[in-house]
């Protein structure tokens, strides 16, 4: 007997109460209806998710393998691997995500450390937290504007450096519109996100562990190297993977730099939709699929690490 049928029966037994085998079997039809009835209230949710999340995603996957006449083909996928510009787009997106996951991750960890274990006044702590909540949601177009006003050619910091040191950073190769410039911009929303997700882990470090280590003669270095860091490692890595995904999917921030000449996957897909450049639906699907695959792998890794970290921290 299949598992589902067994499930239905066990519900029925509770519902109808202990009766003879014959009666249970007679009740089967009714039990099926109770099961359907118990799923019924979730129907709107599932229909909605199916229509606007699952089907659109699934159709991307299916159409990636379809040619113009709907026949099965691998040409779309192959095309990505044959076009250096598209491969470069993936490479850039992955690189900027790694760089900003590291920069935001390390910086965020240090700030998180400062406000959880740094014995700072409570008011400072809650100010950093509130600001992080805002800043992690402050991405996209206005963030691009803010950084143009800061590090653009006429930005405040650019001018400041110019008048203080007498050098124009744009003449020495810096630009907010290139890879490293965009990395700084992305770090702006990565850092507060890291602060928000690393704090629960840091709060999970128990005082007793430190006291026990110190009681056994450990220095601060020993404690961090052999106790705290190994415990934190899975959740730190997990958080950084989340940051990776966060910047890998970003579109608006990069697009808002209209002078930007970095080739990113999200921008290529966006252009494919609005028909700015090449209009090749099959290729667009394959590009989007590639993006989802990379995201899915990183989120799977994240949830694995999350389970690992729950061994010690909760």
């Amino acid at each position, binding site marked *: 007997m299949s598992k589902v049928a067994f499930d239905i029966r066990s519900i029925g037994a509770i519902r109808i109460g202990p009766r003879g085998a014959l009666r249970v079997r007679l009740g089967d039809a009714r039990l099926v209806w109770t099961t359907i009835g118990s799923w019924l209230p979730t129907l709107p949710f599932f229909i909605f998710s199916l229509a606007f999340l699952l089907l659109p995603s699934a159709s*991307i996957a299916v159409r990636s393998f379809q040619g113009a006449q709907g026949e099965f083909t691998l040409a779309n996928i192959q095309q990505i691997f044959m076009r250096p510009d598209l491969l470069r787009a993936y490479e850039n997106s992955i690189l900027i995500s790694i760089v900003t996951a590291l920069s935001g991750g390390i910086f965020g960890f240090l700030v998180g450390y400062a406000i959880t274990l740094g014995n700072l006044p409570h008011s400072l702590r809650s100010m950093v937290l509130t600001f992080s909540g805002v*800043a992690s949601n402050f991405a996209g177009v206005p963030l691009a504007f803010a950084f143009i006003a800061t590090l653009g050619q006429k930005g*405040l910091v650019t001018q400041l450096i110019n008048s203080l040191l007498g050098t124009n950073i744009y003449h020495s190769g810096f630009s907010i519109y290139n890879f490293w410039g965009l990395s700084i911009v992305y770090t702006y929303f990565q850092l507060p996100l890291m602060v928000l997700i690393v704090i629960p882990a840091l709060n999970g470090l128990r005082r007793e562990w430190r006291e026990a280590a110190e009681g056994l003669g450990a220095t601060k270095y020993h404690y961090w190297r052999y106790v705290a860091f190994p415990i934190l490692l899975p959740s730190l890595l997990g958080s950084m993977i989340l940051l990776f995904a966060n910047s890998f999917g970003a579109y608006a921030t990069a697009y808002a730099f209209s002078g930007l000449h970095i080739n990113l996957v999200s921008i290529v897909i966006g252009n494919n939709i609005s028909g700015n450049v090449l209009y090749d639906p099959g290729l667009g699907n394959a590009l989007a699929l590639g993006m989802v695959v990379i995201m899915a792998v990183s989120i799977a890794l994240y949830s694995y690490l999350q389970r690992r970290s729950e061994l010690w921290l909760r």
Partner: protein
Amino acid sequence: MTRRPSLWVWLWLVAWAIFSWLPLVASFDFSLRARKGILSWQAYLNVFADPGFYESLWFSFQTAMLTIVVSIFLVVPTAYWVHLRLRRARPVIEFVTLLPFVVPAVVIAFGLIRLYCCPPISFVSSPLLLVAGYVVLSLPYMYRAADNGLRALDVRMLNEAAQSLGANEFQVFFLVILPNLRTGILSGAFLTFAIVMGEYTLSALLAWPAFGPYMQYVGVFKAYESAALAIISFAITWLAMLLMQWFARVSAAERALTAPR
């Protein structure tokens, strides 16, 4: 025993403060320089004199409200029902509500357009598709807000108590459960509001005159006004997040009072 913060702690904190505040300070400074040689509110006056500003802001506001209402009606009853009667559906629902984290907004937009662009279902020109897309983006936040609230309640006990007093299923949900989840749902709603108000990807790709695309449009032509818009947008996000955190705190305090002991 209270230890004093070390030098390193202050160093990280100062670095954080500079990196976090400098772009805002610079935008504000830049936004005041619309008139040559003097500081003035001219850029803000220009923004406030533009009907497009109000139209796009109003459009995004309406979209955000509709998104919040739809999201609440979709997520909260489902989360409640799953808690009460259908625990085995929980992993499925959690998986679905996490998907918007896995599928980037640009890919969701792409999928929606491709699926609803052409007959038999031509739906791209309806603003409801935009709302549907935003509801999808809000699913993770809204579900978690509702789920956290429900975890803190003893749903079964409340349900039995209300039913023994003669309430039917609908009365239990609307008169007992919903009021108990109010603050948690509101915090999810404000987060959704903050996200929708500044959102660019979906609204631009589906070609709607929302606040995000308006800012982008202004940014192409006007430098000072775009800096002013960055400040205004930051203020909106700030306000929404402050309200969200306030409600989250109230919710946590209520939870502490009503938690099953």
